[in-house]
């Protein structure tokens, strides 16, 4: 079972790429040129992320090396324990709906501390990958057309973020621990 699931995970990306290339080939798309056109857009996306990553990683690294994180974690420990929540993931869970780059920076820090293949690293990966930044989406989508009465949209967004956090922990636990 486990083996099958891992295989599906590993095959999904290559199969998607193969499928796209084959359809492109059959339909006579000039594959290489199209690829180059698309890849050019990747630079802008990554580079515009850089100032936020510098700002947040500097702040998060400071928070960790200064010992402030240890103090904060001691305070939060009783709550996390009561909820059976992995303490190290609490900051990520809290920041995920607020800022995508901040939570990406936190994930980077988590990888640095525990490694990407640790249980925590995997849970963090799934947390980051399985949802979008609720407050940002709300601000952009409603802001762009001047909606001021958002009704229950924020509540729905935050509740589904909570579901995604819990689902991330349960699913990774289920798939990666024996």
């Amino acid at each position, binding site marked *: 079972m486990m083996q099958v699931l891992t295989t599906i995970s590993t095959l999904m990306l290559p199969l998607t790429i193969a499928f796209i290339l084959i359809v492109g080939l059959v339909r006579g798309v000039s594959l290489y040129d199209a690829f180059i056109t698309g890849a050019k857009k990747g630079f802008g996306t990554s580079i515009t992320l850089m100032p936020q990553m510098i700002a*947040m990683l500097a702040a998060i690294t400071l928070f960790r090396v200064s010992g402030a994180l240890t103090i904060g974690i001691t305070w939060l420990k009783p709550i996390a324990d009561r909820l059976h929540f992995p303490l190290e993931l609490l900051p990520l869970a809290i920041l995920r709906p607020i800022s995508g780059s901040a939570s990406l920076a936190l994930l980077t820090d988590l990888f640095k501390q525990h490694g990407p293949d640790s249980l925590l690293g995997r849970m963090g990966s799934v947390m980051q990958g399985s949802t979008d*930044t609720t407050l940002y989406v709300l601000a952009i989508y409603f802001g762009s057309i001047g909606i001021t009465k958002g009704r229950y*949209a924020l509540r729905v967004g935050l509740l*589904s973020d909570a579901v995604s956090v819990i689902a991330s922990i349960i699913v990774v636990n289920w798939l990666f621990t024996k």
Partner: protein
Amino acid sequence: MLNGIWTFLILVSIIVSIATHHADRITQGIFQGAKDGVLFSFGLISIIAFWLGIMEIAQQAGVIAMLSKILSPLVRWLYPSVPRDHPAMGFLIANMSANLLGLGNAATPLGISAMRHLQMLASEKDKATDAMCTLLALNTASLTLIPTTVIGLRITFQSRAPSDIVLPSALATLIATVAAVFFDRYFRAHERHKVRR
């Protein structure tokens, strides 16, 4: 909000490190963190550029159009208040396809176009309609098949299996999306109920 969090993190760090006589850690921390920020943003260029290259092929080959066709019955079910052949429908479908393929940056302008068209259907221009709330719910939960950025970051950290989180992510995002649709409908029904009373 981010303003507050960012300033809080830095100020508290400085106060704690001075109080514990480790002020030297501040300089180290700033340098290390900023350097990591540059390194990892650079590291992400590789996978993001590659993925966007593949997606451009998908676009030109009509794979995204194929996906849209598959998704359209589902999208129609999700937005009962939007007429079938209204231009908003096309953007709603395209937005979902882009999210599925992990094209967050392409999904946003499509979603905003959908919003603009949905606003034409609205009677009150500053109040979110049912369809707008559903669009928001789906985009905040963001159903994604392949989380490219996270895979990219895992590769940067020399993960032995950078893509083994694909299936768990798909599962978690599916659960969150179903929950989002449920909450959206639940709160709407709740609101109607209150108005009627």
